[in-house]
């Protein structure tokens, strides 16, 4: 795709270039200068946003993480004290880190596998397929406080729908959001409800897999499982990679559901829903310990970056690119 693009572009520039020489020879700005001016003019909103809302804040919080800044006071440099505090004094920090890792570790594989499974089912030729696709995608667009309230109601231990449903099979459902052992599985259950969001990505990619591959495999006597593991999975592996990468980053940021479902961010029973970002939020905006919150933010940034690099390194091993290119 890239090479195709540049050939056309080059051809285009050549033609335009020749004409221009005849027409304007030196009177106006050169074509490249004009391209530069327009280019930077057009992207200037993004540059302002990047400097002001991303790079600037990143650098500021790096600096603030070595201070005791609390918005009103002067910033006193306190070296690595904030980082020491995380691992020695602040027990809730460890809890929040553990809760977050637990959530990431389960939610990423579960949602990825769920979305792939669903997309394979929804890629069959069956009556009403369009209807099914719409229906399974619907929960993915519903989010926010209303959905969290809904799930608090669904997960109500005595009269909720989930435990009523389990009761039909003779299973006595847990107390979900009231039992520290079950609060995180409860959030995972809620997450699984909207697994249809990822499904769409995979569906688009599955439709790009040519049927001749499957036909050839069938001639060689491959069964359904073999076809799935040796053709389907490798062919959609770039999307799996992308999905794992982004949903890992996304899961680390779990906040809203925990904030709403634990009475304004109290962390739930036994602090079992005190996620990293919730703890950071409480430090920053409840007690205004901005220096400590900045240190937490940077640690999160480093952890996520390391995981991203690991993901990318591992990805090179298992991601299959058709023809050695992206597309």
């Amino acid at each position, binding site marked *: 795709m890239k090479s195709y693009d540049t050939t056309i572009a080059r051809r285009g520039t050549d033609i335009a270039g020749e004409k221009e020489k005849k027409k304007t020879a030196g009177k106006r700005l050169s074509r490249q200068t004009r391209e530069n001016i327009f280019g930077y003019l057009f992207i200037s909103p993004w540059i302002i946003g990047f400097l002001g809302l991303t790079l600037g804040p990143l650098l500021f919080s790096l600096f603030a993480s070595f201070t005791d800044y609390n918005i009103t006071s002067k910033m006193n440099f306190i070296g690595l004290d904030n980082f020491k505090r995380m691992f020695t004094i602040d027990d809730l920090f460890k809890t929040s880190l553990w809760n977050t890792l637990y959530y990431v570790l389960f939610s990423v594989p579960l949602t990825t596998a769920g979305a792939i499974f669903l997309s394979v089912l929804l890629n069959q030729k069956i009556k009403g397929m369009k209807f099914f696709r719409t229906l399974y995608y619907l*929960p993915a667009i519903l989010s926010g406080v209303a959905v969290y309230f809904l799930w608090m109601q669904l997960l109500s231990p005595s009269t909720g729908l989930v435990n009523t449903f389990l009761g039909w099979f003779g299973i006595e459902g847990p107390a979900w959001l009231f039992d520290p052992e079950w609060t995180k599985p409860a959030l995972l259950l809620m997450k699984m409800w909207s697994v249809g969001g990822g499904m*769409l990505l995979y569906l688009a990619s599955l439709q790009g897999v040519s049927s001749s591959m499957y036909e050839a495999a069938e001639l060689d006597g491959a069964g359904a499982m073999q076809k799935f593991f040796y053709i389907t999975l490798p062919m959609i592996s770039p999307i799996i990679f*992308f999905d794992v990468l982004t949903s890992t980053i996304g899961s680390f940021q779990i906040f809203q559901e925990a904030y709403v479902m634990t009475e304004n961010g109290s962390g739930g029973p036994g602090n079992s829903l005190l996620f990293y970002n919730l703890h950071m939020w409480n430090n920053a905006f409840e007690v205004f310990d901005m220096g400590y919150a900045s240190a937490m933010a940077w640690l999160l940034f480093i952890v996520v970056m390391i995981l991203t690099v690991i993901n990318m390194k591992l990805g090179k091993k298992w991601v299959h690119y058709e023809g050695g290119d992206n597309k």
Partner: protein
Amino acid sequence: MKTASAPKFYETKKFKEKVKQTIVFTVLLAGSVLILSPLWWMISTSLKSPAEIAQYPPAFIPSEFHFSNYVEAWKTAPFTRWAMNTFFIAFFGMVGSVLVNSLVAYAFAKIRFKGRNSLFMVVLSTMLIPGFVTMVPQYILFSKLGWVNTYLPLIVPAFLGSAFFIFLLRQFMMTIPNELIEAAVLDGANHLQIWWHIMLPLTKPALITVAIFSFNGAWNDLLGPLLYLNDESLYTLQIGLQTFKGTVQTQWHYLMAMSVMVLLPVVLLFFFFQKHFIEGSNIASGTKG
């Protein structure tokens, strides 16, 4: 579908295909019930009386439909005001997202300026930075600017571009032939004119996708309003709904009624623009990897 050597009917490919389709259909149907039942439960609860909600085993269909729950709940808090506030923020955010991101994407797709490719890599890499990392300093910045308790921190960033939307629109614009741009250049058009007269009309489907995603995102955002809005009169529906729970406590008929109302616009948007929700995912998936 051929029955060349006339095997028994259950050995034919057609039969196996039929069996497979039936199994898949059954699984999908069962799954549909699981997907839909929470939504149905929400509506059902919103129409029950408090006594019926507390009853065990729970009733699946309310014995009496209390539509008045909706009216009572709506009157309990300034929901009309909150709905208008939310719409205001979401609308301006949407306008900013569509105009600015398409302008930026146009430059990255079609203008051959110096340093374009490296800057585009920077755009992509910002997508990997967790938003929470910049949240605290952003708050400090906006509070020093005196923007706390105004809508500016919620609207202005939309006018400064979003990496995901830039990426999405740029991918879409890459599929538009460069000859079109070159021809316009030969006719003496500058890039601003080309963007406005050629690019915007041609990328309409992708722009609608961005508009919907942006509107939807603003509508569902709790974090931003939670951080920046203090006055109840400035609240959005999300934060309003959150405080509403403090008011009505565990009166689930009211909570569910208002939840239905808050989700309704999003559901309507989805059914009207289904194609564009799906298109957005397709553009993103066709090129990422």
